[in-house]
Every structure is written in C-alpha cells, then in structure tokens.
C-alpha cells in the first residue's frame, strides 16, 4: 500500500466516522414522536385519543401520566415534553411563570365534575345539600376517602365544596387522605372507606363504586384541564394539539365523563 492510498483511506475513514456521528446526533426526522405530560386523571381518555391520532396520522404519541405538580416541576427543570395537560390552572400557571410554556397555545381543554361515591353494593343514600348529614353517613368509624386536600387538586375541590356546604368541620378529622384521586377511588371500591369524593370520570371508570350525588358547579371552582405546548415543542405536536379540539377527540372525552367546550 503506497502512501497516497493510505492517506485517502484514512480520509475516507474519517469522513465516514464524522458523517455517522452527525447522523446519530440529528433528530430522526421520519420517526417523530410526540411526548405529552398529562395529569393522571386523564390516563384512560387521553390514551384512547392518542391511539386514534396515531391510527390516523402514523405519528406515535407517548404519554407520561403523573400528578400535575410533579409534571410541572419536571417541565420547569427542562424535561423534554412537547405538551402539558394539567388537572388545574395552578400548576399550568406555575410552568408558564417559569417560562416553559408557549402561552399562545394555552387552551382550557376539558371540564370535570365532582361526585360523592360509595361502594357499588352500599345502600347509603344522602342528598348533597347545605349542611347535609355527611358525617352520620360515614358511620361510627368510617372515613371519607379524598385526595389529600393539602395538595391533590381533587381533594382541594372537595374541601372547598364541603366548606361552602357547611359540612367541612364535621368531617375534616375523618378523612382518608390519599396521595391521588385514583387511590381514594380504590379505597371506596375495596370497602376501606364507606364514602369518597372523586371526579365523575374516575367514578365511571370503576365498576366497584356508584355515584351517590353530584356536587353543583357553584360549590367549587371550575375543574378545568388546561393544555398547552411546551416551549421548543416539536412541530408535529401542533397537529396533536389541534386534534385534541376536534369533534372526534371531544366525543371520546365526553364518553369518559368529561365535558368539552364549544
């Protein structure tokens, strides 16, 4: 092998290596995926909508479902999400204040309702009204299963509603404070608690519980689910954000017990 061949061989090797590195560093344009950070209470509904979107467009949608507070903190500290759907405005505001949200894309996507539930085989009957006998309905040592009113949005709504109805003082020491609303739901479904307060959507997803009553919208702040693109989201995410407002997606959300706008 003469010297010239050797040099050209080395050059060829170098070029191949560099181009291989460049190719692996570039985003794979053909296999774009959308990453959505969404509140845990949206798990079933959003997965169904995501599947329909992928079937229609071929673009895979990945979800990370967790509490809105955790997701907002992750987005704040730079997590690579394209979209954030929060279970309340507070944590969306938090992420927006941190400068991580594309404010122009923010929409209130869904609205939920708060319900009082009992195990499916329970015969308890109470009517939600001012000063209704909630503590008596719990029996001697039963607890009311709720998301922790200190930080779980469903629990905060429950506390507000019960306070406005004047029954909060009688039950505040009798709560089973769950880490999220789905745990509160399972406490009731498993007969660990005779009554619980969850979203209508949760109650509909669990065969082990029945809805005893629905809290009027006047008794608590609106249960809104805001959605927004995260700054620097991949362009394909806009398509999914638009799809969430489409009649097909709205029909799916309503089937899971959410209310939609427009």
């Amino acid at each position, binding site marked *: 092998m003469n010297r010239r061949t050797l040099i050209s061989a080395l050059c060829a090797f170098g070029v191949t290596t560099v181009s291989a590195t460049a190719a692996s560093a570039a985003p794979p344009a053909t296999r774009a995926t959308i990453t959505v950070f969404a509140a845990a209470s949206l798990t079933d509904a959003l997965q169904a909508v995501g599947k329909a979107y992928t079937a229609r467009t071929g673009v895979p949608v990945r979800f990370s479902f967790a509490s809105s507070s955790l997701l907002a903190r992750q987005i704040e500290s730079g997590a690579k999400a394209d979209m954030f759907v929060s279970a309340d405005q507070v*944590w969306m505001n938090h992420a927006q204040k941190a400068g991580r949200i594309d404010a122009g894309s923010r929409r209130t996507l869904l609205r939920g309702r708060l319900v009082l539930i009992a195990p499916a085989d329970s015969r308890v009957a109470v009517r939600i009204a001012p000063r209704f006998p909630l503590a008596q309905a719990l029996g001697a040592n039963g607890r009311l299963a709720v998301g922790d009113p*200190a930080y779980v949005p469903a629990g905060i709504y429950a506390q507000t509603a019960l306070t406005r109805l004047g029954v909060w003082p009688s039950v505040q020491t009798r709560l089973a404070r*769950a880490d999220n609303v789905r745990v509160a739901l399972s406490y009731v479904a*498993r007969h*660990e608690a005779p009554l619980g307060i969850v979203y209508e959507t949760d109650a509909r997803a669990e065969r082990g519980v029945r809805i005893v009553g629905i809290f009027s919208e006047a008794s608590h702040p609106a249960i809104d689910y805001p959605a927004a693109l995260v700054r620097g989201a991949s362009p394909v995410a806009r398509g999914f954000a638009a799809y969430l407002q489409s009649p097909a997606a709205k029909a799916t959300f309503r089937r899971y017990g959410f209310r939609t706008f427009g």
Partner: protein
Amino acid sequence: MLTATEWEVLALSVSIAGRAVLFALPLALITGWVMARTRFPGRTLLDAVLHSSLFLPPVVVGLVLILLFGNDGPIGEMLARFGIRLIFTANGAALAAGVMAFPLMLRACRQAIEAVDPRIEAVADSLGAGFWDRTFSITLPLAAPGLIAAAVIGFAAALGEFGAVITFAANIPGETQTLALAIYAALQQPGGEAVALRLAGISFGVAIVALLSSEALLAYGRRRSGQ
C-alpha cells in the same frame, strides 16, 4: 426551635418507627435464627419470600397489605372481629413500615447469629443447659451487638419509609403522617421546598440520635461483659 406541628410529626414518626421495630425485630430474630442454624428443603425459596419487600416496589407492598389487612382482606376481617383496625391507623403505618424494614433486620439478625461459634453452644449443651437456657445465656448475649445494629437499621428504614405507608395508611396528620409523608406533602405544594428541607433536617437529627444511642448501648454492653 421546632413548631408545634413539627413536634407532633416528629413524635408520631418516632412512635411509628419504634412500633415497627417492636413487632418486626422479634420476627426477624426468629427467622434469622432459622436461616442461620437450620437446613431444610425450600429454604432458599423461603429466604426469597422473606426478602420480597426489598425488591418489590413499596406501593405494591402497600397494595398487598390492603388486600390482606383491609376491611375485605382475610386477616383484616379476622382482626375486625376483635375490634382491631389497621388501615388508616398509626398501627397500620407501623405495620407497613415494619414490613418494609424487615429484610434489613433479618439480614443483620442472621449474621449476628451466624457469628456466634456453635461450639460454645455445644459446650453449654454438654454442661446440661437446655435450649432456652443456652439461647438466653449464651447465644443472644453474644449476638447482642448485631441485634442492636438490626434494631437501629430497622428503625432508620422505618423512619424513612414512604410508599407502603402512604398506600396502606394514607396521609392523615396526627395519625399516620410521618416525617417522610409530611416531606412529600410539602413538596407537592408550590414553594413547599423550605418546609420540606426543615423536615428533612429533623429526620437527619433523629437518625443521628438513634445512631449515637446505639453506640452508647454497645459501649455499655462491652464494659459489662469486660471485653
């Protein structure tokens, strides 16, 4: 220095971790002795089962506890007949924390028993000491340093346990809200970092105190036995 709420959380945490050690340590000692001194078929399988809370996610352990000790669970139903309720109570929190800390205590107990020379036990045996006499006057005193270590590590693990406790006992202030749960709750609120850090500092203080008292206990034991 500490607020009333912080004192309450601290006292409750120490009480729950203490109860966890109180019920789990005797079981760890017995199973540790069995593992160290006996051979039988299925021993490895039993060992794996005893260590299951080490490799299962804590929330799964919490769920299994609900299935066993909840109102619909076989053990829960039995206890309810005696008026004992574990779910959503401080004793339930101690159960969950104790189950999570059990494998660590088991390992320490087993090693402590294994470290006792069986020939000394054999000598006691030859001099006419029965099983219980031999166990209480030879085996346990010789294993004491290891057993104290088991108690301390179990206490520390129970103090920091989170997932199993919040799943089984929920997060009820004054009843089941330990330091670990209070820290978690604080972190869920916007701007709760300062509160969480204070509580973490308190946890650290408790762990230091527990460690120092175990050292003191060991030193006392050494002086008494003249080693």
